[in-house]
Protein backbone atom coordinates (compact mmCIF):
# COMPACT_ATOMS: atom_id res chain seq x y z
CA UNK A 1 0.00 0.00 0.00
CA UNK A 2 2.72 2.48 1.02
CA UNK A 3 4.89 1.24 -1.82
CA UNK A 4 2.13 1.95 -4.35
CA UNK A 5 1.73 5.43 -2.91
CA UNK A 6 5.33 6.17 -3.99
CA UNK A 7 4.17 6.05 -7.62
CA UNK A 8 1.53 8.67 -6.79
CA UNK A 9 4.30 10.78 -5.26
CA UNK A 10 6.29 10.49 -8.46
CA UNK A 11 3.32 11.67 -10.51
CA UNK A 12 2.59 14.59 -8.21
CA UNK A 13 6.23 15.62 -8.50
CA UNK A 14 6.11 15.41 -12.28
CA UNK A 15 3.12 17.78 -12.46
CA UNK A 16 4.62 20.26 -10.02
CA UNK A 17 6.07 22.45 -12.76
CA UNK A 18 3.08 22.07 -15.07
CA UNK A 19 0.01 22.19 -12.85
CA UNK A 20 -1.93 23.84 -15.69
CA UNK A 21 -1.92 20.58 -17.65
CA UNK A 22 -3.46 18.83 -14.67
CA UNK A 23 -5.87 21.59 -13.74
CA UNK A 24 -7.14 22.61 -17.18
CA UNK A 25 -9.14 19.39 -17.45
CA UNK A 26 -11.10 20.57 -14.45
CA UNK A 27 -13.01 22.97 -16.70
CA UNK A 28 -14.18 20.27 -19.07
CA UNK A 29 -17.41 19.29 -17.28
CA UNK A 30 -18.27 22.98 -16.85
CA UNK A 31 -17.84 23.56 -20.55
CA UNK A 32 -20.17 20.71 -21.40
CA UNK A 33 -22.68 21.78 -18.76
CA UNK A 34 -22.87 25.28 -20.23
CA UNK A 35 -22.28 24.29 -23.84
CA UNK A 36 -24.96 21.65 -24.04
CA UNK A 37 -26.87 21.66 -20.77
CA UNK A 38 -27.64 25.35 -20.61
CA UNK A 39 -27.54 26.05 -24.36
CA UNK A 40 -29.87 23.24 -25.25
CA UNK A 41 -31.79 23.64 -22.03
CA UNK A 42 -33.54 26.56 -23.67
CA UNK A 43 -34.94 24.19 -26.30
CA UNK A 44 -35.71 21.29 -23.98
CA UNK A 45 -38.71 21.19 -21.72
CA UNK A 46 -38.28 19.50 -18.34
CA UNK A 47 -36.97 15.96 -18.44
CA UNK A 48 -38.61 13.12 -16.55
CA UNK A 49 -36.54 11.19 -14.00
CA UNK A 50 -38.25 8.56 -11.81
CA UNK A 51 -41.55 10.33 -12.18
CA UNK A 52 -40.22 13.81 -11.36
CA UNK A 53 -39.91 16.55 -13.93
CA UNK A 54 -36.46 18.11 -13.62
CA UNK A 55 -34.69 20.81 -15.59
CA UNK A 56 -32.32 19.68 -18.31
CA UNK A 57 -29.14 21.02 -16.61
CA UNK A 58 -30.12 19.19 -13.42
CA UNK A 59 -30.45 16.03 -15.49
CA UNK A 60 -27.14 16.35 -17.36
CA UNK A 61 -24.95 17.55 -14.49
CA UNK A 62 -24.71 14.30 -12.49
CA UNK A 63 -23.92 12.42 -15.68
CA UNK A 64 -21.06 14.81 -16.32
CA UNK A 65 -19.59 13.97 -12.91
CA UNK A 66 -19.24 10.37 -14.04
CA UNK A 67 -17.81 11.51 -17.37
CA UNK A 68 -15.22 13.67 -15.59
CA UNK A 69 -14.12 10.72 -13.46
CA UNK A 70 -13.88 8.56 -16.58
CA UNK A 71 -11.95 11.11 -18.65
CA UNK A 72 -9.44 11.91 -15.92
CA UNK A 73 -8.67 8.22 -15.50
CA UNK A 74 -8.58 7.59 -19.24
CA UNK A 75 -6.18 10.40 -19.99
CA UNK A 76 -3.77 9.12 -17.37
CA UNK A 77 -4.00 5.47 -18.30
CA UNK A 78 -3.81 6.00 -22.05
CA UNK A 79 -1.08 8.41 -23.22
CA UNK A 80 0.77 8.75 -19.96
CA UNK A 81 0.74 5.05 -19.10
CA UNK A 82 1.83 4.15 -22.61
CA UNK A 83 4.66 6.66 -22.54
CA UNK A 84 5.98 5.39 -19.23
CA UNK A 85 5.52 1.76 -20.23
CA UNK A 86 7.04 1.81 -23.69
CA UNK A 87 8.85 5.02 -24.53
CA UNK A 88 10.58 6.36 -21.46
CA UNK A 89 10.84 2.93 -19.78
CA UNK A 90 10.01 4.49 -16.44
CA UNK A 91 8.72 1.22 -15.08
CA UNK A 92 11.86 -0.69 -16.00
CA UNK A 93 13.73 1.72 -13.76
CA UNK A 94 11.16 1.34 -10.98
CA UNK A 95 11.43 -2.44 -11.16
CA UNK A 96 15.14 -2.19 -10.35
CA UNK A 97 14.13 -0.92 -6.90
CA UNK A 98 12.42 -2.95 -4.16
CA UNK A 99 9.02 -2.06 -5.66
CA UNK A 100 7.14 -4.90 -7.32
CA UNK A 101 5.12 -4.98 -10.50
CA UNK A 102 1.95 -5.10 -8.42
CA UNK A 103 3.04 -1.91 -6.65
CA UNK A 104 3.56 -0.25 -10.03
CA UNK A 105 0.12 -1.20 -11.39
CA UNK A 106 -1.71 -0.37 -8.16
CA UNK A 107 0.18 2.89 -7.82
CA UNK A 108 -0.73 4.03 -11.31
CA UNK A 109 -4.37 2.96 -10.91
CA UNK A 110 -4.62 4.88 -7.66
CA UNK A 111 -3.17 7.97 -9.26
CA UNK A 112 -5.54 7.80 -12.23
CA UNK A 113 -8.46 7.30 -9.84
CA UNK A 114 -7.41 10.31 -7.80
CA UNK A 115 -7.04 12.45 -10.89
CA UNK A 116 -10.52 11.57 -12.12
CA UNK A 117 -11.82 11.96 -8.58
CA UNK A 118 -10.36 15.44 -8.30
CA UNK A 119 -12.24 16.64 -11.38
CA UNK A 120 -15.50 15.07 -10.25
CA UNK A 121 -15.32 16.51 -6.78
CA UNK A 122 -14.56 20.06 -7.92
CA UNK A 123 -17.50 19.84 -10.30
CA UNK A 124 -19.70 18.34 -7.60
CA UNK A 125 -19.04 21.23 -5.26
CA UNK A 126 -19.94 23.68 -8.02
CA UNK A 127 -23.17 21.79 -8.72
CA UNK A 128 -24.09 22.02 -5.07
CA UNK A 129 -23.57 25.77 -5.23
CA UNK A 130 -25.65 26.04 -8.42
CA UNK A 131 -28.42 24.16 -6.60
CA UNK A 132 -28.41 21.33 -9.12
CA UNK A 133 -28.30 18.55 -6.50
CA UNK A 134 -31.54 17.40 -4.94
CA UNK A 135 -30.58 14.98 -2.20
CA UNK A 136 -28.28 14.53 0.77
CA UNK A 137 -27.28 11.20 -0.78
CA UNK A 138 -25.03 13.46 -2.87
CA UNK A 139 -22.40 13.32 -0.13
CA UNK A 140 -21.68 9.78 -1.33
CA UNK A 141 -21.02 10.93 -4.89
CA UNK A 142 -17.24 11.36 -4.36
CA UNK A 143 -16.97 7.68 -3.48
CA UNK A 144 -18.99 6.70 -6.51
CA UNK A 145 -16.81 8.93 -8.68
CA UNK A 146 -13.61 7.35 -7.33
CA UNK A 147 -15.07 3.93 -8.08
CA UNK A 148 -15.91 5.00 -11.65
CA UNK A 149 -12.39 6.40 -12.07
CA UNK A 150 -10.77 3.25 -10.73
CA UNK A 151 -12.94 1.05 -12.94
CA UNK A 152 -12.01 2.92 -16.12
CA UNK A 153 -8.37 3.19 -15.08
CA UNK A 154 -8.23 -0.59 -14.63
CA UNK A 155 -9.76 -1.44 -17.99
CA UNK A 156 -7.87 1.30 -19.82
CA UNK A 157 -4.50 0.24 -18.44
CA UNK A 158 -5.15 -3.26 -19.72
CA UNK A 159 -6.14 -1.93 -23.15
CA UNK A 160 -3.08 0.32 -23.30
CA UNK A 161 -0.73 -2.65 -22.89
CA UNK A 162 -1.87 -3.69 -26.39
CA UNK A 163 -1.14 -0.32 -28.00
CA UNK A 164 1.78 -0.58 -30.46
CA UNK A 165 2.19 3.09 -31.41
CA UNK A 166 0.63 6.49 -30.89
CA UNK A 167 -1.63 6.01 -33.90
CA UNK A 168 -3.39 3.14 -32.11
CA UNK A 169 -4.87 5.63 -29.68
CA UNK A 170 -7.23 6.68 -32.47
CA UNK A 171 -8.78 3.26 -32.05
CA UNK A 172 -8.64 3.52 -28.27
CA UNK A 173 -10.72 6.69 -28.29
CA UNK A 174 -12.92 5.23 -30.98
CA UNK A 175 -14.12 2.94 -28.22
CA UNK A 176 -14.54 5.59 -25.54
CA UNK A 177 -16.20 8.33 -27.61
CA UNK A 178 -19.48 6.42 -28.05
CA UNK A 179 -19.57 5.83 -24.31
CA UNK A 180 -19.50 9.53 -23.69
CA UNK A 181 -22.25 10.49 -26.12
CA UNK A 182 -24.48 7.43 -25.89
CA UNK A 183 -24.35 6.33 -22.23
CA UNK A 184 -27.41 8.25 -21.02
CA UNK A 185 -25.32 11.23 -19.97
CA UNK A 186 -27.40 13.49 -22.20
CA UNK A 187 -30.74 11.67 -22.32
CA UNK A 188 -32.52 8.95 -20.39
CA UNK A 189 -32.41 5.24 -21.18
CA UNK A 190 -36.09 5.36 -22.13
CA UNK A 191 -35.19 7.28 -25.28
CA UNK A 192 -33.74 4.07 -26.70
CA UNK A 193 -36.02 1.48 -28.28
CA UNK A 194 -36.71 -1.51 -26.05
CA UNK A 195 -34.20 -3.79 -27.81
CA UNK A 196 -31.29 -1.37 -27.52
CA UNK A 197 -31.59 -0.78 -23.78
CA UNK A 198 -29.77 -3.95 -22.61
CA UNK A 199 -26.86 -3.01 -24.89
CA UNK A 200 -26.57 0.41 -23.30
CA UNK A 201 -26.89 -1.17 -19.86
CA UNK A 202 -24.01 -3.49 -20.64
CA UNK A 203 -21.58 -0.58 -21.12
CA UNK A 204 -19.55 0.70 -18.18
CA UNK A 205 -20.25 4.41 -18.24
CA UNK A 206 -24.00 3.81 -18.03
CA UNK A 207 -23.53 2.35 -14.54
CA UNK A 208 -21.48 5.30 -13.38
CA UNK A 209 -23.98 7.82 -14.76
CA UNK A 210 -26.99 5.94 -13.40
CA UNK A 211 -25.48 5.53 -9.94
CA UNK A 212 -24.39 9.15 -9.59
CA UNK A 213 -27.68 10.49 -10.95
CA UNK A 214 -29.60 8.35 -8.45
CA UNK A 215 -27.43 9.72 -5.65
CA UNK A 216 -27.88 13.29 -6.82
CA UNK A 217 -31.66 12.92 -7.10
CA UNK A 218 -32.10 10.65 -4.06
CA UNK A 219 -33.68 7.95 -6.21
CA UNK A 220 -31.57 4.99 -5.11
CA UNK A 221 -33.03 1.59 -5.92
CA UNK A 222 -31.93 -2.03 -6.18
CA UNK A 223 -30.49 -1.13 -9.55
CA UNK A 224 -27.96 1.04 -7.71
CA UNK A 225 -26.57 -2.07 -6.02
CA UNK A 226 -26.23 -3.53 -9.50
CA UNK A 227 -24.34 -0.41 -10.63
CA UNK A 228 -21.90 -0.73 -7.75
CA UNK A 229 -21.43 -4.46 -8.35
CA UNK A 230 -20.77 -3.87 -12.06
CA UNK A 231 -18.15 -1.19 -11.30
CA UNK A 232 -16.45 -3.35 -8.64
CA UNK A 233 -16.27 -6.26 -11.07
CA UNK A 234 -14.76 -3.91 -13.65
CA UNK A 235 -12.05 -2.93 -11.18
CA UNK A 236 -11.27 -6.52 -10.21
CA UNK A 237 -11.15 -7.87 -13.76
CA UNK A 238 -9.34 -4.88 -15.25
CA UNK A 239 -6.70 -4.81 -12.52
CA UNK A 240 -6.02 -8.55 -12.79
CA UNK A 241 -5.71 -8.39 -16.59
CA UNK A 242 -3.54 -5.29 -16.49
CA UNK A 243 -1.19 -6.80 -13.92
CA UNK A 244 -0.82 -9.95 -15.97
CA UNK A 245 -0.18 -8.13 -19.24
CA UNK A 246 2.28 -5.71 -17.65
CA UNK A 247 4.19 -8.66 -16.20
CA UNK A 248 4.41 -10.14 -19.69
CA UNK A 249 5.81 -6.88 -21.03
CA UNK A 250 8.14 -5.88 -18.22
CA UNK A 251 9.40 -9.02 -16.53
CA UNK A 252 10.31 -11.59 -19.15
Amino acid at each position, binding site marked *: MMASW*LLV*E*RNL*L*SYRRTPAVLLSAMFEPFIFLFGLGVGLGKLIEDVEWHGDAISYPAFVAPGLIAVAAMNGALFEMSFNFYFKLRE*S*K*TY*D*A*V*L*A*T*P*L*SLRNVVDGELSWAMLRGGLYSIVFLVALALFGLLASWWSVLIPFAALLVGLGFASLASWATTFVRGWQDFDLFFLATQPLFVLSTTFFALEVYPEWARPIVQATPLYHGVDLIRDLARGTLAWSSVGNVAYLCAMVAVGRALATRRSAQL*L*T*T
Partner: protein
Amino acid sequence: MAMAVEARSLTKRFGEFTAVDGIDLTVERGESFAMLGPNGAGKSSTMRMISTVSPATSGQLSVLGLDPATDGQAIRSRMGVVAQDDNLDDALTVRENIMIYGRYFGLSWAAARSKADELLQFAQLEDRSGAQVNSLSGGMKRRLAIARALVNDPDLVLLDEPTTGLDPQARHLLWERLYQLKERGVTLVLTTHYMDEAEQLSDRLVVMDQARIVAEGSPSSLIAEHVSKEVLEIRYPAEANVDLADLGLRTEELADRTLIYTDRGEDTLAVLVNSGRTPSSSLVRRASLEDVFLALTGRRLVE
Protein backbone atom coordinates in the same frame (compact mmCIF):
# COMPACT_ATOMS: atom_id res chain seq x y z
CA MET B 1 30.15 -14.12 2.98
CA ALA B 2 28.21 -15.37 -0.03
CA MET B 3 29.40 -14.68 -3.56
CA ALA B 4 28.02 -11.57 -5.23
CA VAL B 5 26.70 -13.66 -8.12
CA GLU B 6 26.76 -17.39 -8.61
CA ALA B 7 25.18 -19.10 -11.63
CA ARG B 8 25.08 -22.79 -12.56
CA SER B 9 23.73 -23.98 -15.92
CA LEU B 10 21.78 -20.73 -16.11
CA THR B 11 19.48 -20.77 -19.13
CA LYS B 12 17.03 -18.28 -20.61
CA ARG B 13 14.72 -19.14 -23.49
CA PHE B 14 12.16 -16.95 -25.25
CA GLY B 15 9.96 -19.50 -26.98
CA GLU B 16 12.20 -21.32 -29.43
CA PHE B 17 15.04 -18.84 -29.07
CA THR B 18 17.77 -19.56 -26.52
CA ALA B 19 19.26 -16.29 -25.28
CA VAL B 20 21.46 -17.79 -22.56
CA ASP B 21 22.52 -21.41 -22.87
CA GLY B 22 23.54 -23.04 -19.60
CA ILE B 23 26.27 -20.69 -18.44
CA ASP B 24 28.28 -20.98 -15.21
CA LEU B 25 29.76 -17.92 -13.63
CA THR B 26 30.92 -16.64 -10.29
CA VAL B 27 31.50 -13.06 -9.22
CA GLU B 28 33.25 -12.49 -5.92
CA ARG B 29 32.57 -9.63 -3.52
CA GLY B 30 34.54 -6.51 -4.30
CA GLU B 31 35.43 -7.78 -7.73
CA SER B 32 34.92 -5.96 -10.97
CA PHE B 33 33.57 -8.43 -13.47
CA ALA B 34 32.84 -7.93 -17.15
CA MET B 35 30.87 -9.83 -19.78
CA LEU B 36 32.39 -9.16 -23.16
CA GLY B 37 30.69 -10.14 -26.37
CA PRO B 38 29.01 -8.87 -29.52
CA ASN B 39 25.38 -7.75 -29.65
CA GLY B 40 23.01 -10.66 -29.13
CA ALA B 41 25.56 -12.81 -27.27
CA GLY B 42 23.27 -13.11 -24.24
CA LYS B 43 24.92 -10.50 -22.01
CA SER B 44 21.84 -8.35 -21.46
CA SER B 45 19.59 -11.35 -20.83
CA THR B 46 22.03 -12.53 -18.18
CA MET B 47 22.01 -9.06 -16.64
CA ARG B 48 18.22 -9.00 -16.57
CA MET B 49 18.16 -12.33 -14.75
CA ILE B 50 20.70 -11.07 -12.20
CA SER B 51 18.67 -7.90 -11.72
CA THR B 52 15.66 -10.14 -10.85
CA VAL B 53 13.27 -8.77 -13.48
CA SER B 54 13.61 -11.75 -15.78
CA PRO B 55 12.97 -15.24 -14.39
CA ALA B 56 15.49 -17.92 -15.41
CA THR B 57 14.11 -20.71 -17.58
CA SER B 58 16.33 -23.28 -15.85
CA GLY B 59 19.52 -23.63 -13.83
CA GLN B 60 20.50 -21.99 -10.55
CA LEU B 61 21.19 -18.39 -9.81
CA SER B 62 22.07 -16.76 -6.55
CA VAL B 63 22.62 -13.02 -6.13
CA LEU B 64 24.19 -11.75 -2.88
CA GLY B 65 23.41 -15.20 -1.48
CA LEU B 66 19.69 -14.91 -2.24
CA ASP B 67 17.40 -16.49 -4.82
CA PRO B 68 16.02 -13.97 -7.37
CA ALA B 69 12.87 -16.04 -7.83
CA THR B 70 11.79 -15.65 -4.20
CA ASP B 71 13.87 -12.84 -2.70
CA GLY B 72 13.77 -10.33 -5.56
CA GLN B 73 12.81 -7.48 -3.31
CA ALA B 74 15.60 -8.14 -0.80
CA ILE B 75 18.15 -8.44 -3.62
CA ARG B 76 17.00 -5.25 -5.32
CA SER B 77 17.21 -3.30 -2.09
CA ARG B 78 20.98 -3.97 -2.01
CA MET B 79 21.67 -3.60 -5.70
CA GLY B 80 21.99 -0.73 -8.17
CA VAL B 81 21.10 -1.13 -11.85
CA VAL B 82 22.22 1.07 -14.73
CA ALA B 83 20.25 0.06 -17.80
CA GLN B 84 21.56 0.38 -21.33
CA ASP B 85 19.08 3.11 -22.28
CA ASP B 86 19.34 4.97 -18.95
CA ASN B 87 15.59 4.78 -18.18
CA LEU B 88 15.69 8.24 -16.68
CA ASP B 89 12.39 9.89 -15.84
CA ASP B 90 12.18 12.83 -18.21
CA ALA B 91 9.17 14.35 -16.48
CA LEU B 92 11.43 15.10 -13.51
CA THR B 93 14.54 17.21 -12.97
CA VAL B 94 18.02 15.78 -12.49
CA ARG B 95 17.82 16.04 -8.73
CA GLU B 96 14.25 14.77 -8.52
CA ASN B 97 15.26 11.68 -10.47
CA ILE B 98 17.60 10.69 -7.67
CA MET B 99 15.23 11.77 -4.92
CA ILE B 100 12.19 9.83 -6.09
CA TYR B 101 14.41 6.81 -6.62
CA GLY B 102 15.61 7.19 -3.05
CA ARG B 103 11.97 7.18 -1.95
CA TYR B 104 11.46 3.88 -3.77
CA PHE B 105 14.28 2.48 -1.62
CA GLY B 106 12.52 3.67 1.52
CA LEU B 107 14.48 6.87 2.24
CA SER B 108 12.66 9.74 3.91
CA TRP B 109 12.35 12.92 1.83
CA ALA B 110 15.06 14.58 3.93
CA ALA B 111 17.44 11.65 3.50
CA ALA B 112 16.63 11.46 -0.22
CA ARG B 113 17.46 15.14 -0.62
CA SER B 114 20.83 14.97 1.08
CA LYS B 115 21.68 11.73 -0.71
CA ALA B 116 20.80 13.36 -4.02
CA ASP B 117 23.15 16.28 -3.33
CA GLU B 118 25.97 13.93 -2.39
CA LEU B 119 25.51 11.84 -5.54
CA LEU B 120 25.19 14.85 -7.84
CA GLN B 121 28.60 15.89 -6.61
CA PHE B 122 29.99 12.42 -7.26
CA ALA B 123 28.56 12.51 -10.80
CA GLN B 124 29.79 16.09 -11.36
CA LEU B 125 26.24 17.24 -12.04
CA GLU B 126 25.77 19.74 -9.18
CA ASP B 127 25.29 22.65 -11.55
CA ARG B 128 22.63 20.75 -13.53
CA SER B 129 20.63 19.78 -10.47
CA GLY B 130 17.46 21.65 -11.50
CA ALA B 131 17.73 20.91 -15.22
CA GLN B 132 15.29 18.76 -17.16
CA VAL B 133 16.73 15.37 -18.06
CA ASN B 134 16.20 15.99 -21.78
CA SER B 135 18.64 18.87 -21.75
CA LEU B 136 21.55 16.66 -20.65
CA SER B 137 24.21 15.27 -22.98
CA GLY B 138 24.57 11.51 -23.40
CA GLY B 139 27.50 11.37 -21.00
CA MET B 140 25.66 13.40 -18.36
CA LYS B 141 22.60 11.17 -18.64
CA ARG B 142 24.72 8.10 -18.10
CA ARG B 143 26.39 9.69 -15.09
CA LEU B 144 22.99 10.56 -13.68
CA ALA B 145 21.81 6.98 -14.25
CA ILE B 146 24.85 5.77 -12.32
CA ALA B 147 24.32 8.29 -9.54
CA ARG B 148 20.70 7.21 -9.29
CA ALA B 149 21.74 3.55 -9.04
CA LEU B 150 23.90 4.42 -6.03
CA VAL B 151 21.10 6.00 -4.01
CA ASN B 152 20.78 2.92 -1.76
CA ASP B 153 24.54 2.47 -1.21
CA PRO B 154 24.39 -0.84 -3.08
CA ASP B 155 26.72 -3.78 -2.49
CA LEU B 156 26.46 -4.73 -6.14
CA VAL B 157 26.09 -2.48 -9.18
CA LEU B 158 25.04 -3.81 -12.59
CA LEU B 159 25.96 -1.75 -15.65
CA ASP B 160 24.66 -2.77 -19.07
CA GLU B 161 26.96 -1.33 -21.73
CA PRO B 162 27.81 1.75 -19.68
CA THR B 163 29.64 3.68 -22.41
CA THR B 164 27.93 2.60 -25.64
CA GLY B 165 27.19 5.66 -27.74
CA LEU B 166 29.36 8.07 -25.75
CA ASP B 167 32.21 10.16 -27.12
CA PRO B 168 35.77 9.34 -25.96
CA GLN B 169 35.93 12.17 -23.45
CA ALA B 170 32.66 11.17 -21.80
CA ARG B 171 33.83 7.55 -21.70
CA HIS B 172 37.00 8.41 -19.84
CA LEU B 173 35.16 10.49 -17.26
CA LEU B 174 32.78 7.61 -16.70
CA TRP B 175 35.57 5.07 -16.37
CA GLU B 176 37.19 7.28 -13.77
CA ARG B 177 33.96 7.36 -11.72
CA LEU B 178 33.51 3.61 -11.97
CA TYR B 179 37.10 3.08 -10.90
CA GLN B 180 36.38 5.17 -7.79
CA LEU B 181 33.44 2.92 -6.99
CA LYS B 182 35.60 -0.15 -7.35
CA GLU B 183 38.14 1.40 -4.97
CA ARG B 184 35.36 1.79 -2.41
CA GLY B 185 34.78 -1.96 -2.52
CA VAL B 186 31.56 -1.97 -4.54
CA THR B 187 31.14 -5.09 -6.64
CA LEU B 188 30.70 -4.16 -10.30
CA VAL B 189 29.22 -6.37 -12.99
CA LEU B 190 29.22 -4.84 -16.45
CA THR B 191 28.58 -5.87 -20.00
CA THR B 192 30.37 -4.36 -22.94
CA HIS B 193 31.31 -4.97 -26.51
CA TYR B 194 34.39 -2.77 -26.25
CA MET B 195 37.53 -4.70 -25.42
CA ASP B 196 39.31 -1.60 -24.13
CA GLU B 197 36.53 -1.05 -21.63
CA ALA B 198 36.78 -4.63 -20.38
CA GLU B 199 40.56 -4.24 -20.12
CA GLN B 200 40.27 -0.95 -18.25
CA LEU B 201 37.56 -1.85 -15.79
CA SER B 202 37.54 -5.55 -15.08
CA ASP B 203 39.60 -7.74 -12.79
CA ARG B 204 38.11 -10.74 -14.46
CA LEU B 205 35.84 -11.30 -17.44
CA VAL B 206 33.98 -13.86 -19.46
CA VAL B 207 33.80 -13.75 -23.23
CA MET B 208 30.28 -14.59 -24.45
CA ASP B 209 29.21 -15.63 -27.91
CA GLN B 210 25.95 -17.10 -29.13
CA ALA B 211 24.46 -17.55 -25.65
CA ARG B 212 27.51 -19.32 -24.22
CA ILE B 213 30.67 -18.44 -22.34
CA VAL B 214 33.63 -19.19 -24.59
CA ALA B 215 36.49 -18.06 -22.33
CA GLU B 216 37.09 -16.80 -18.82
CA GLY B 217 39.98 -15.16 -16.96
CA SER B 218 41.73 -11.87 -16.35
CA PRO B 219 42.31 -9.69 -19.42
CA SER B 220 46.05 -10.42 -19.46
CA SER B 221 45.71 -14.15 -18.86
CA LEU B 222 43.16 -14.43 -21.68
CA ILE B 223 45.50 -12.69 -24.08
CA ALA B 224 48.43 -14.83 -23.00
CA GLU B 225 46.38 -18.00 -23.31
CA HIS B 226 44.65 -17.42 -26.64
CA VAL B 227 46.82 -15.08 -28.68
CA SER B 228 50.41 -13.88 -28.97
CA LYS B 229 51.89 -10.78 -27.32
CA GLU B 230 51.76 -8.70 -30.46
CA VAL B 231 49.85 -8.50 -33.68
CA LEU B 232 51.29 -7.50 -37.04
CA GLU B 233 48.61 -6.03 -39.31
CA ILE B 234 49.59 -5.89 -42.99
CA ARG B 235 47.94 -4.94 -46.28
CA TYR B 236 48.82 -6.02 -49.80
CA PRO B 237 47.36 -4.68 -53.03
CA ALA B 238 44.18 -6.54 -53.95
CA GLU B 239 45.75 -8.43 -56.90
CA ALA B 240 48.80 -9.64 -54.90
CA ASN B 241 48.66 -13.28 -53.88
CA VAL B 242 51.16 -13.64 -51.05
CA ASP B 243 51.79 -16.91 -49.25
CA LEU B 244 52.57 -16.56 -45.54
CA ALA B 245 52.53 -20.25 -44.58
CA ASP B 246 56.33 -20.48 -44.21
CA LEU B 247 56.27 -18.06 -41.23
CA GLY B 248 54.78 -20.80 -39.09
CA LEU B 249 52.55 -18.24 -37.32
CA ARG B 250 48.81 -18.11 -36.92
CA THR B 251 47.29 -15.66 -39.39
CA GLU B 252 43.82 -14.25 -39.85
CA GLU B 253 42.57 -12.99 -43.23
CA LEU B 254 40.15 -10.09 -42.85
CA ALA B 255 38.33 -8.37 -45.68
CA ASP B 256 40.73 -5.46 -45.83
CA ARG B 257 43.92 -6.74 -44.14
CA THR B 258 45.77 -9.71 -42.70
CA LEU B 259 46.64 -10.21 -39.02
CA ILE B 260 49.72 -12.17 -38.02
CA TYR B 261 49.98 -13.26 -34.39
CA THR B 262 53.57 -13.04 -33.26
CA ASP B 263 55.55 -12.34 -30.10
CA ARG B 264 57.91 -9.97 -31.93
CA GLY B 265 56.08 -7.97 -34.55
CA GLU B 266 59.05 -5.97 -35.89
CA ASP B 267 61.11 -9.15 -36.45
CA THR B 268 58.29 -10.80 -38.36
CA LEU B 269 57.91 -7.70 -40.52
CA ALA B 270 61.66 -7.75 -41.23
CA VAL B 271 61.39 -11.38 -42.38
CA LEU B 272 58.66 -10.37 -44.84
CA VAL B 273 60.63 -7.39 -46.17
CA ASN B 274 63.85 -9.42 -46.56
CA SER B 275 62.04 -12.13 -48.50
CA GLY B 276 60.63 -9.61 -51.00
CA ARG B 277 57.09 -9.57 -49.57
CA THR B 278 57.00 -5.94 -48.43
CA PRO B 279 53.37 -5.05 -47.58
CA SER B 280 51.84 -1.80 -48.87
CA SER B 281 51.14 -0.85 -45.25
CA SER B 282 51.91 -2.39 -41.89
CA LEU B 283 51.26 -1.86 -38.19
CA VAL B 284 52.61 -3.60 -35.10
CA ARG B 285 50.40 -3.42 -32.03
CA ARG B 286 49.79 -5.06 -28.66
CA ALA B 287 47.35 -7.98 -28.78
CA SER B 288 43.91 -7.16 -27.39
CA LEU B 289 40.75 -8.91 -26.25
CA GLU B 290 39.39 -8.25 -29.71
CA ASP B 291 42.04 -10.70 -30.97
CA VAL B 292 41.00 -13.19 -28.29
CA PHE B 293 37.46 -12.99 -29.50
CA LEU B 294 38.51 -13.34 -33.11
CA ALA B 295 40.69 -16.33 -32.27
CA LEU B 296 37.86 -18.01 -30.39
CA THR B 297 34.99 -17.35 -32.76
CA GLY B 298 36.51 -16.36 -36.09
CA ARG B 299 34.44 -13.17 -35.95
CA ARG B 300 35.02 -9.65 -34.73
CA LEU B 301 33.35 -8.03 -31.72
CA VAL B 302 32.05 -4.89 -33.34
CA GLU B 303 31.02 -5.41 -36.92
